[in-house]
C-alpha cells in the first residue's frame, strides 16, 4: 500500500500541478479504509466437554432434534468459563456441530481446523490459514502455543495447503525475539539491522550456487532463496514500523523461555501461555498480524496440558496432574478431585489468560470503539468433545462478532443432533467465517460420508448477517 501510494504521488507530481497533487492526497486520506478484521483461534488440547461448559439453567437434551437459539445472559457460567463471564454479551456458545470426518483418538491435529480425516495430516488449507490468506498482514498467520515438551516449535495445527504445515512457536521468549526486534532499542535494534544485511548477503550467496544447478535441484534452492528474499523484504517493512512495534511490544520475562519437562515441579505452562497471549495481543496491536492460532497443548505431540496441582490453585496433595490420566474418567482422583474436574480447572486457567488478551484489545481504541470490536475469538478443542472423542459434537465458544460481520453475541445455539434434519458440521461454521471476510464457498474440507443424506453445504444461516 505504501509503495503504491508513493508511486502514485510521484506520478502525480510529474504529470500535474501542485494543486492537483493535494487533491489526490486528500482523496487518498479520505478514502474509507476497510474495517479491520482479526481472528484468534484458541485451540485447547484434551477436549472441551459439552456438559462442563453448559451454562446453568439451559437444559441439555441428549439428542435434540430441533434448533435451540436463545440468549446467554442471565445464565451463570460454569467453573471453567467463569473467566469469560464479563463478556457474556459478546459470547456465542455453539453446541451440536459435528466433525465426524476427523475422527482421531486423542487429538485431531490439523483436522480440527481443516475438516478432513485426522490421519491425512496437513491435507489442505485449515480455516485459520484461509482466514490469514484473506486478511493478510506482514505476518499473515502467527502460530503460538504451549506444550509440556521442551520443544521450541511444532507443526501440528495449521496448514496452508496440502503438505505445507505452518509452525506453532512454543517458546514465548523466542517468539518475542522473532516478532518484536524491529521495535527494540540500542543493541537489539542494531542487531535487527545487521540481520537485514545478513539476509541480503545470504540471498546473494544462494543465487551464486543456484547458477550451477538446473531443473528440480535449482528449484529446490529457489525455495531457500525465496525464504531469504521474503524475510529481507519483511525486514524493510518492519523497520518502517519500528515505532509502533516498540509501543506495542510486550514485556516477557526471559525465564518463561526456560521449558523443562518435569513431573515433580512447577511446569510454568500457564505463565508461558500468558506470555504467548501477550505476544499475540502485541502482534495484533502493532499491526503485525490479523490471525493468530493459540495452542494450549493441542496437536499430536502432546495430549493437552499437564501441570502440578498447585499451579491450579488446588489444595491438598500437590502432585503432578497428567493430561492423559485425567482424561480417563472419574475413577481416579488428583489433588482430591476427579480427573474431569482437574481438566475443568486447567481450562479455567487457560481462559484466564485469554481474558487478559481480551482486556488488552479492549484497551486499544479503534474507530468508534476498540480493537476488540473488530476481533473474533474462536475457542475449541482439537480433541472435540472429550479425551477420547467421537466428534458427534464439537463445542465452540465464540467471542466478538468480527466488526459486525457475523450475527454473534449473547447467543446459545444448539443444532439438531448428528443425523437429524437441520444438523450442521464444523465445516459449516468455518464457511460462515470465510463468508464474513468475503469468501463465498459451498464446502470446506472433506464432507462427512455418514451425513450423505443431509445438506452439508454453505455457512450457518443463523450467523449470516
Amino acid at each position, binding site marked *: 500500500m505504501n509503495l503504491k501510494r508513493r508511486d502514485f504521488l510521484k506520478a502525480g507530481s510529474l504529470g500535474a500541478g501542485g494543486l492537483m497533487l493535494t487533491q489526490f492526497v486528500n482523496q487518498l486520506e479520505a478514502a474509507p479504509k476497510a474495517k479491520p478484521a482479526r481472528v484468534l483461534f484458541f485451540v485447547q488440547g484434551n477436549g472441551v466437554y459439552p456438559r462442563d461448559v453448559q451454562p446453568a439453567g439451559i437444559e441439555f437434551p441428549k439428542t435434540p432434534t430441533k434448533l435451540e437459539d436463545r440468549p446467554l445472559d442471565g445464565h451463570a457460567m460454569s467453573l471453567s468459563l467463569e473467566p469469560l463471564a464479563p463478556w457474556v454479551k459478546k459470547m456465542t456458545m455453539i453446541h451440536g456441530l459435528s466433525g465426524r470426518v476427523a475422527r482421531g483418538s486423542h487429538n485431531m491435529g490439523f483436522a480440527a481446523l481443516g475438516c478432513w480425516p485426522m490421519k491425512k495430516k496437513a491435507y489442505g488449507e485449515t480455516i485459520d490459514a484461509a482466514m490469514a490468506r484473506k486478511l493478510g498482514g506482514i505476518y499473515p498467520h502467527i502460530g503460538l502455543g504451549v506444550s509440556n515438551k521442551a520443544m521450541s516449535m511444532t507443526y501440528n495445527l495449521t496448514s496452508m495447503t496440502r503438505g505445507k504445515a505452518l509452525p506453532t512457536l512454543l517458546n514465548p521468549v523466542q517468539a518475542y525475539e522473532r516478532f518484536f526486534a524491529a521495535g527494540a532499542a540500542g543493541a537489539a535494534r542494531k*542487531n535487527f539491522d545487521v540481520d537485514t544485511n545478513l539476509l541480503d548477503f545470504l540471498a546473494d550467496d544462494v543465487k551464486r550456487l543456484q547458477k550451477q544447478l538446473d*531443473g528440480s535441484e535449482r528449484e529446490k534452492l529457489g525455495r531457500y532463496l525465496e525464504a531469504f528474499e521474503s524475510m529481507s523484504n519483511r525486514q524493510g517493512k518492519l523497520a518502517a514500523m519500528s515505532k509502533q512495534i516498540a509501543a506495542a511490544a510486550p514485556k516477557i520475562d526471559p525465564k518463561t523461555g526456560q521449558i523443562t519437562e518435569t513431573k515433580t515441579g512447577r511446569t510454568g505452562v500457564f505463565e508461558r501461555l500468558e506470555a504467548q497471549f501477550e505476544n499475540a495481543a502485541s502482534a495484533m496491536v502493532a499491526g503485525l498480524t490479523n490471525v493468530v492460532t493459540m495452542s494450549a497443548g493441542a496437536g499430536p505431540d502432546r495430549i493437552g496440558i499437564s501441570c502440578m496441582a498447585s499451579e491450579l490453585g488446588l489444595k491438598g496433595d500437590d502432585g503432578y496432574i497428567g493430561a492423559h490420566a485425567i482424561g480417563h474418567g472419574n475413577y481416579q482422583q488428583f489433588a482430591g478431585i476427579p480427573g474431569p474436574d482437574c481438566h475443568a480447572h486447567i481450562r479455567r486457567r487457560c481462559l484466564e489468560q485469554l481474558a487478559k488478551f481480551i482486556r488488552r484489545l479492549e484497551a486499544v481504541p479503534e474507530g468508534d470503539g476498540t480493537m476488540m470490536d473488530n476481533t473474533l475469538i474462536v475457542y475449541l478443542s482439537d480433541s472435540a468433545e472429550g479425551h477420547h472423542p467421537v466428534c458427534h459434537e464439537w463445542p465452540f465458544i465464540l467471542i466478538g462478532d468480527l466488526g459486525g460481520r457475523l450475527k454473534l453475541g449473547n447467543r446459545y445455539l444448539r443444532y439438531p443432533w448428528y443425523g437429524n434434519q437441520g444438523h450442521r458440521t464444523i465445516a459449516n461454521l468455518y464457511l460462515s467465517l470465510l463468508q464474513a471476510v468475503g469468501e463465498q464457498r459451498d464446502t470446506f474440507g472433506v464432507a462427512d460420508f455418514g451425513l450423505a443424506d443431509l445438506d452439508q453445504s454453505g455457512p450457518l444461516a443463523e450467523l449470516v448477517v
Partner: protein
Amino acid sequence: MKRAIFSILLNGLALQAAPDEAGFRKTVVPFLESYCLNCHDNETQEGKLSLEDIRPTMTEGALETWRLVQEQLQFADMPPAKKQQPNPAERAAVLAWIRGELLKTQEPGALAEEKLTQPQFGNYVDHAALFGQRRSHVTPAPPRLWRLRPAIYNATMPRLGERITGLANGLNQNDGSNFKDFSAGYFLDEAATAPLLGNAKKIAEALTAPTSKDRPLKVLVTETPPTQQQVTDGIQTAFRKIVGRAPTAEEQERFGAFHKASSNTGGHVAGAKALLTAILLQPEVLYRMELGTGEPDEHGRVRLSSRETAYALSYALDDRPVDRLLVAADEGKLNTAAEVAAEVRARLADESLAQDRNPRVLQFFREYFHYPFAREVFKDAPEGGVHRPDLLVADLETTVRDALRTDREVLATLLTTRRFYVNANYKSVKNKGVQLVQGHNKWWPYQTAFNLPPDWRWNLTEQPLEFPKGERAGVLTHPAWLAAWSGNFENHPVQRGKWIRTHLLGGTVPDVPIGVDARVPEAEHVTFRNRLKQATNAAECWRCHRKMDPLGVTFERFDHYGRFQRRDAGQPVDTTGWIDRTGIRELDGTRVQGPAELMAVLAESPYVEQVFVRHAFRYFMGRNETLGDANTLQDAHKAYQSSGGSFRALVESLLASDSFLMRQLPQQSKD
C-alpha cells in the same frame, strides 16, 4: 526437456521420448473403439471412466488411466465376460504399446509427474525391465542437493558449539509409512529457514562465547576490533569447522567484505556473529552436495568428488560424518568402486550384539517394516492383559539385530522366524558391556501379548522363545508389526495386504478415493473378515481391494493386539488367502491356509527378494530407481544371492555402484 531427450538417446534401448502416436492410431484406437468405448465413452462413462478423449501421453492423470487400462487388459478383467472379446494377439499388441509408453516415463531424466519421485510410487517402474536385460551402463541421477535429514542436523550442529542445546526443529520430516529421507521430498522454505536462522545465531553465540575452544573465533568479539589478519584466520577456522573445508580465495574475500559491512552497521561483535551465522546457513552446510566433479566420461557422467563420496557414504550408514571415511577421502582412497567397496565392507563389519555401529542399517528395517509405528496406534488394554507397544517394538528389534549380526538369508529369516524375544533386549550393563537382559522389570502381564500363560515366568536362558509352527512366522506375525498395522479397535487387513502387495510383491495400489467412506460395518456375531467383505465386495471397491484383502485377511489369525486367536466374534476364524494378479508366474494362483504358509511362500520367491532389493536401493540412494539403474539392481541382487542372503553384501554392492557414486550431467541437446 533437453536433458530428457539426451539421456534417452544415451541408453541402450533407443526409445524416443515422444509418444508413439502412429502406434496409438494404428493399434490402440481401433481396439478402444471395438472393445471399450461402448461403455467407456463420454456419454455412458461406465464406472465413471471415459476413454473417448484419452491422449497417447503418459502425463497429468492420463498415466493412472493407462495403468488402469493395462491392468484390466493384463488380467482379462475387461472387456466383461459377456461382451465381445479381443483375440489374444490384439490384447497383446495394445499391452505392448502401453508398456512401451510407460517405460519411457521410467527412463532416467524422463519428464515424469512429480509424484513419481516419491517413495510410495517407486514400484511404478517396470520390474521386468529392471531385472531383465542388462544395459550397456548405468545412467545415474543428475547432480543433486539433498537437504540434511533432522537426525544429521541434530547430531552435527550441537557439536559445533560445545554441545549446544535447545536448537529449534526447523527441518520437517514426512510422517507415514514410507522411507523418510528422500532427496526429492525436502527443501528449505521460509517456515524452515526462520528457525534455522535462529539456531545459527545461537550457535554463532556459542562459538564466540568465553567457553568456546576456538580462539580464532573468540578474538573476533574481544573489546578491540580484530585486525585484518584475525578476520582472515577467523573465516578460515569457521569454514573448516562448519563447512568442513578451507574457504576459496573468492569466499575469503566475499565473507571478509561481509564482515566489514556488518561491523560498520552494528559494531564488530555483531559483525563477527553475523559472519558465523552466514557460514552456518550456507547451502553447503544444510544440504548434502552431490554435484560430482572432473571430466565427464563417454556417457556424460561425472564421479562424486572424494569428499562428496565420503559424506554420501557417512550419511548412508550413520547420522554424522565418519572420520575414517573423511580421512580416506583426503588420502585419495575413495577414488574407485573397489576402494569404496572395501571401506564400506570394513565399516559394515559389526559383530556387536546391538548392531548399532551403522544406525542407518537398522533404521532401514524400521522404515521398511514400519513396526515402530505400533507406539502411535492407541489401544485400550485388553481384558486380562496389557498393551505395551514400546516393549513389543524393543522385543522385535532384538530379533532384527540378531538377523543383522548373523547376516545370513536376512530377508527370509525376518519373514519366517518363529524365534522371538519376550521382554529381552540388548542393553549396556555396567562393567560388562552390552548383554541380553530383561527389558522392563514391570512387565507382567505383558507376556499375554504372545499368548503366554498368566503364570509364565521370565527366564533369560529361554530367550528367544520358539513359538509353535503355524502360530508365528516372521516380522509380520509379531505383535509389534500387527499392532502397527491395525486400527484402535480392530485389525486392518487392508493395510496389511497393501504392505505385502507393495513391499514384497512390488505391486501398486491407488490411493483411497477421497469420496470413499472407508468404514467396516458394525455387526455382532460376524467375524471381522466377513464384515470387511460387506464393505469391500462391491465391484468398484473390489477392483482395488482384490489386491490387498486376500493377503491381509490371513492375519485374522491374530487379534488387533497381535494375540493368536482361533475365534473372532464367537465364530471360528477363516485365515485362508491367496496370491494373484502379481504377474509372477511362480506365485500367481497360490492359495494359503494362513499367515505362516503365506510367509513361507513369499520368503522362497526370488522375485520377492528383488522387490526387497529395490526398497533397499531407494532407502540408500534417497530416490526411486529408474530404468537407468537396472544394472545396479541386478548386481545388488546377485551380491545378495551369492553371499547367501547377506544384507551387508547387498548394501556394499549398492554403495559401490555407479548409481551411488556417479551423476549424470545435464547435456546440451545435439541439435
